[in-house]
């Protein structure tokens, strides 16, 4: 079946360090992946997305890497700031409207 899962439930980093959040998916037919940031009591906020014909995409302070061989996705946040503290979800779409979300990873940034 389809599933998208995260390796770690909590990630603690020091302010200024780089953060890497990982995600694995099971359906090799998946063609679209998204990273969302969710702060407490708020809706998921779009960060960055990537399609299966790419292996890397960069945004402002964020980079998403896609390794289709091992069905792995990662989100890298450069120079992590306190405002980056949140739960991060990866989600995949498999030729349908619906996003399949993975289990969130809580990112904690310490001063």
């Amino acid at each position, binding site marked *: 079946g389809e599933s998208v899962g995260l390796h770690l439930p909590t990630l603690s980093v020091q302010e200024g360090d780089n953060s890497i959040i990982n995600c694995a998916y099971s359906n090799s037919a998946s063609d679209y992946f*998204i990273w969302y940031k969710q702060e407490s009591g708020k809706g998921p906020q779009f960060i960055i997305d990537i399609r299966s014909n790419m292996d890397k995409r960069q945004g402002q302070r964020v980079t998403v890497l896609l390794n289709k061989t091992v069905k792995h996705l990662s989100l890298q946040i450069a120079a992590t700031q306190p405002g980056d503290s949140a739960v991060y979800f990866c989600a995949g779409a498999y030729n349908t409207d619906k996003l*399949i979300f*993975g289990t969130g990873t809580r990112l904690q940034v310490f001063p």
Partner: protein
Amino acid sequence: AAGVIQSPRHLIKEKRETATLKCYPIPRHDTVYWYQQGPGQDPQFLISFYEKMQSDKGSIPDRFSAQQFSDYHSELNMSSLELGDSALYFCASSLGRYDTQYFGPGTRLTVL
């Protein structure tokens, strides 16, 4: 920039009551999605609409129904509410199917 609007933001109902959640997509977005998020869980897809027609369906209970109107807003109707329906309900919209989904702030439903 305009975002997805959801109302109400908070809703408290008794068991077996009904509830209606509303979603107003980002202007020009023609696709609307509904998700349910339980405490400490990831969002689960319920249903989606494209150009006022149901386009995909997920784990939506038969007690729930939804529709998209001519102005593209959508309503999620929930009947015979159960305690387990207590959750955050998110609406998302996109400009066309398979495009980036932007989420609203959610409606927190509490069933007592």
